[in-house]
């Protein structure tokens, strides 16, 4: 079976590059084709990359607390661009301050994300979720 393609990057005016590199290597080692857009990525850039590469999922990172603002409208833009049903993940320090994560998760799911990951999530957890959602057999 051909590799599943992921588009990853850190959204908004966020320049946290280390976690992004770790995720790139972890996802690649796990057998995914990874298109890494790096840091300071706009919604439009994820979408453009996903269209050209026929991606299976977009995995958005946000570490600086503004993720909620940055991610708003992402699902709608995907739909508008013909990427209906695109698998959308988000993770990192996606909101400001210490908020109960189940509430945060609820808000991101309501925004159209398929999954949201709490601070400190290990790459393995996300990889397992990707394999499940994309029906990748071990």
């Amino acid at each position, binding site marked *: 079976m*051909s590799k599943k*393609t992921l588009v990853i990057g850190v959204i908004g*005016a*966020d*320049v*946290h590059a280390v976690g992004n590199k770790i995720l790139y290597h972890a996802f690649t080692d796990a057998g995914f*084709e990874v*298109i890494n857009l*790096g*840091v*300071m990525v706009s919604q439009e*850039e994820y979408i*453009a*990359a996903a*269209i*050209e*590469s*026929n*991606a299976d999922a977009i995995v958005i990172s946000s570490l*600086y*607390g503004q993720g909620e603002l940055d991610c708003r409208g992402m699902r709608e833009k995907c739909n508008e661009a013909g990427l209906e049903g695109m698998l959308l993940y988000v993770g990192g320090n996606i909101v400001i301050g210490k908020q109960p994560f189940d509430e945060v998760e609820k808000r991101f799911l309501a925004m159209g994300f398929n999954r949201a990951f709490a601070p400190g999530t290990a790459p393995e957890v996300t990889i397992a979720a990707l394999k499940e959602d994309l029906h990748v057999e071990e």
Partner: protein
Amino acid sequence: MKPILLIDFGSTYTKVTAVDADEGRLLGSAASYTTVETDVNDGLANAVALLEKQTGKLEFQERYACSSAAGGLRMIASGLVPELTAEAAKCASLGAGAKVIKTYSFELNEDDIEEILAEKPDIFLLVGGTDGGNKACIINNAKALAAAGGNFPIVIAGNRNAARECERILAGRQVFVCENVMPKFGVLNIEPTQQCIRDIFLGRIVQAKGLTKASELISGIMMPTPSAFLAAMKLLADGTKTESGIGELIAVDVGGATTDIYSIASGMPEHPGTILKGLPEPYVKRTVEGDIGMRYSIHGIVEAAGIDAIAETSGIDAERVKELVDYLGSHTDTLPTTPELEALDEALASHAIRTAVTRHAGRLEETYTMMGLAYAQTGKNLKSVNRIVVTGGSLIHTRNTGRIASFALYDQNDPMSLKPVKAEFLVDRKYILAAMGLLSEHYPEIALKIMKEELEKDGTAE
């Protein structure tokens, strides 16, 4: 003596340059009207006669030609996402010396197909999708082109997993399959496509443009003129194995209908922490501003710069500028014979250069982040490029070339535009650069030597 004739069949003039390959020097140059409607050889013979008046009779051992006659190499391209494969397609076509009439993104619709058929391009470049990526768009567009008919050759340079299928869909047409212009996300691979475009130009377009009669006379290398010019600039910048070039440079060519900007520069950011955005930039880059030109596109200059800016630069009041611009736009063969027209032409050329170089150069964006100030760069950083080569009638026939060309420089009022901070101007006074590009195919050392000698220094500005 070993005289070599270099010919540039332009849309208006056929320019000839003679070089002695034994001594490695320029013998002379001349120009006469292009006669593509009747027989291009008439115009060529006239130009050579003028040339031989200066040099005496020459027994040419080799003849090479480039051409932008009969509209040049007219191309249309289609890609998927505008900023990605469609941009890569445009970049590939321009770098091959083509005139890009239009670039389409996403799926071609019926209106687009009608437009394409009406335009009758010389070559259509069909791309879209990274390798293993989107196939639907390029396949759809291949079907649309197949259904539409027409007899222009089609170059397929998109997703390799869809290439064969597109070829089958277009069976019966002249189809050429190349490597993907964007094999992976963010990776440009435009050279194979450019080579293919050049081969088609040689094999088919030359015939269709009524240049066959001339091609019997010449030893080879028929290429589009911008392609020859680009070869000259690359040689001048990089040098040969035995002689070094002059280093990174920008070239500006302000014409009647378009303004072409070339940069031979890596364009990397000034500060190591800068984040690069957008497609990677080719080291050798050509952009063409179709709305910026001294006569046919004169209104585009005014639109981009504003009438007041042109009035201020020329010292002519705005009302009068308006009148003159309208006149020149409809009398395109007017030469600047009065001091007033001369001043206006200078101002127009200055703003044409500023607009075109600003569009060619990259931009920096400042963003305040939680980690402090961050910079993002899109396009090429040309701030440290310190040589600007200048060509084009409006610039080589004036005494103020350096002053006009200084409008290509970094501008305090637009500090995020990454244009050269300080540069020396080199003027192609004898109009030989396309010829040197042709010569460089077989005699790079001589071409480099002649360029270094003949390009006239016209000051430095910052």
